[in-house]
């Protein structure tokens, strides 16, 4: 019985080539247009996130190193000095971490002097300013070589509007500082520059794991953006078809055949889920073949797609129930004409709107399409399913709650009038 209802729904979809074209063709065209037109903005292969970073050193590391060598009191061989030069912490940070090939794809580093500090802080295009106080490297060297605890730390000024960028810079610095402090054991081993070198390479290695994350191209981005937006129209289309069944009294006929309204309800729900799933597979499949949008983690992709399809099924049945209850299609029309666009905007389908503020980013992630988008993008970057658990759980919860609300508001009697 439910199978018949789903089969009938599928036939209705297939018999409307225009609608089908809009559902499937439109997102593909949009991916193409947006992906190509905005590839400059997204810089082709480079990641979506752009971080403009300034670094201000209150005192040159060279000077600090000389002072450190002098203060040691004893004459050091030039080789030792040279080795130390190689492990100067800020120089390494600039060269190997922030300046690595991977990192420099999304980070532009600018070295500034004290006079520029005010200007940079007032310039909204900067994501962060790293200020290194006087004596910083000197103290690090002291800490490494003589285990003296007195240490000052780097100061990070951040632009809260660049939420994503800030978290990246913050992550890099935290990791780096952890690495710097880890090396107290070096004390025991006396001066052995080679070990530091290795350890510093560990730091760079760690950071480059971040960099090794796959870059998200504009085509990737818009494939996800358009897919998660357009699949919402599956829900509204199913809602419309279902309401048409009520207004043309076909639903009455089904009830008169002694079919439980819950059978019908489940039919709507399942067709919503199945069609949403197929729709996503179709769009992503097409993008894979034509645009080369590949998924490093197919399991993660499938799981996210399934969760998302459940959420869309929930929306479909919720729209249906509300239309039946209010005996009007107004809700579905509002959903497809206004709400979808709004949700798509918040969710980041058109551009990474979440980067502009933490609040909008949060708002975006509580829309099903936004949560789906975040999950997909994360999987695309090479993350595991476990990294997107929060989004997946949200999608499943969203689906379940929609279904419950729908079941509760679905009229129990009085179908005809």
């Amino acid at each position, binding site marked *: 019985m439910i199978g018949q209802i789903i089969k009938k729904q599928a036939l*209705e979809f297939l*018999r409307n080539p225009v609608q089908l074209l809009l559902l499937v063709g439109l997102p593909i065209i949009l991916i193409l247009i947006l992906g190509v037109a905005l590839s400059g903005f997204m810089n082709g292969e480079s990641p979506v996130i752009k971080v403009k970073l300034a670094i201000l050193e209150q005192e040159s590391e060279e000077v600090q190193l000389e002072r450190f060598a002098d203060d040691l009191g004893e004459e050091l061989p030039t080789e030792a000095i040279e080795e130390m030069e190689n492990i100067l912490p800020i120089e390494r940070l600039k060269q190997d971490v922030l300046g690595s090939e991977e990192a420099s794809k999304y980070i532009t580093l600018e070295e500034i002097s004290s006079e520029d500090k005010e200007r940079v802080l007032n310039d909204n295009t900067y994501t962060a300013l790293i200020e290194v106080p006087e004596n910083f490297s000197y103290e690090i060297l002291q800490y490494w070589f003589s285990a003296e605890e007195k240490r000052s730390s780097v100061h990070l000024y951040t632009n809260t509007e660049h939420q994503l960028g800030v978290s990246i810079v913050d992550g890099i610095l935290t990791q780096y500082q952890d690495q710097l402090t880890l090396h107290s054991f070096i004390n025991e081993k006396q001066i052995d520059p080679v070990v530091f070198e290795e350890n510093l390479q560990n730091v760079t290695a760690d950071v480059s794991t971040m960099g090794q994350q796959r870059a998200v191209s504009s085509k990737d981005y818009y494939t996800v953006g358009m897919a998660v937006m357009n699949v919402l129209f599956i829900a509204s289309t199913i809602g419309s078809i279902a309401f048409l069944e009520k207004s043309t009294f076909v639903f009455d*006929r089904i009830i008169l*055949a002694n079919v439980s309204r819950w059978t019908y309800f489940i039919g709507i729900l399942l067709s919503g889920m199945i069609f949403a799933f197929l729709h996503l597979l179709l769009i992503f499949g097409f993008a894979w073949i034509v645009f080369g949008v590949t998924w490093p983690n197919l399991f993660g992709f499938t799981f996210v797609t399934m969760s998302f399809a459940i959420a869309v099924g929930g929306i479909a049945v919720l729209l249906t129930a509300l239309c039946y209850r209010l005996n009007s299609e107004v809700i579905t029309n509002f959903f497809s004409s206004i709400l979808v666009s709004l949700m798509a905007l918040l969710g980041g389908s058109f551009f990474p709107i979440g980067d502009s503020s933490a609040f909008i980013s949060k708002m975006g992630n509580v829309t099903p399409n936004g949560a789906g988008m975040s999950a997909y993008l994360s999987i695309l970057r090479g993350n595991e399913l476990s990294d997107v658990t929060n989004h997946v759980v949200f999608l499943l919860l969203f689906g379940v709650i929609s279904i419950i609300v729908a079941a509760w508001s679905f009229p129990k009697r*009085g179908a005809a*009038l």
Partner: protein
Amino acid sequence: MLELVDLSKKFKQLYAVKNVNMFVERGEIIGLLGPNGAGKSTAISMISSLAEPTSGDVRFHNESILKKPGDFRNIVGVIPQEIALYTDLTADENLQFFGRMYRLKGSTLKNKINEILDLVGLTDRRKDVVKTFSGGMKRRLNIGVALLHDPELLIMDEPTVGIDPQSRNYILETVKRLNKERDMTVIYTSHYMEEVEFLCDRIYIMDHGNLIASGTNEEIKRILSSEKTISIKSDQLNEQFISLIQEHPLVNRVVTTDKEITLMVAKEVSMFVELTKFAEQAGIELTSVHNRTPTLEDVFLHLTGRALRD
């Protein structure tokens, strides 16, 4: 078999159906006649267990259908006033889908579909999408779908609205056949009195939610035994002529359309002389003047002062 007891349905302030009492015996064709908005469809939706009455009851073999709609639904076939079909699907697919809803399967369903397509004359169009059908073909399929489960009682809500005369005759003949050959009991709703006169054993006339007359065709017309109907036709009808007639003391009721005036007078009154005089006064020429035997239409006019058709 079926009985309506003080059946009422109220929408906000309006009684769409008010204290309607009816009975239907097995094998009868019952007509429910009334103008648009009389409350026929509202009554039908309660009779077919789809809408809950505000008060009153529908009893099937002396049991309220409200308590166990399931049993009743198994034996009733309902043809809604609207084309309740999937217009994107073919005739075959529609019958297939609804057949499956009625839990028919395999060869039983296949045979049934063939039989119904033959009955409603759509066998050669079975593979066509309903959207491409004419109004009459859609109506016929609309009826066919309600016959899939061999109902004992067939409820038809204005099954001939907006279709060509051939399809209309086909449908009327089909209803007659179903009643004769399969002993199907039929409740037939219409605002066309000819249909109801042609088909029905007994007739109920509704207006503004109320039953205003009931009985066999002859019984109802006997209401008019003391009156007769005069129909006047002219292309030049004007205000003056109409008001002259309306003000005449022996005229009981007048209904005017573009080119026709219908008036009722006591059986023994002759109006020919007066009518000719009025026409002269108003400066118009009459095309025809007829004394008519009363129709159901005239009964409705007599009881309500309005014409049946809008």
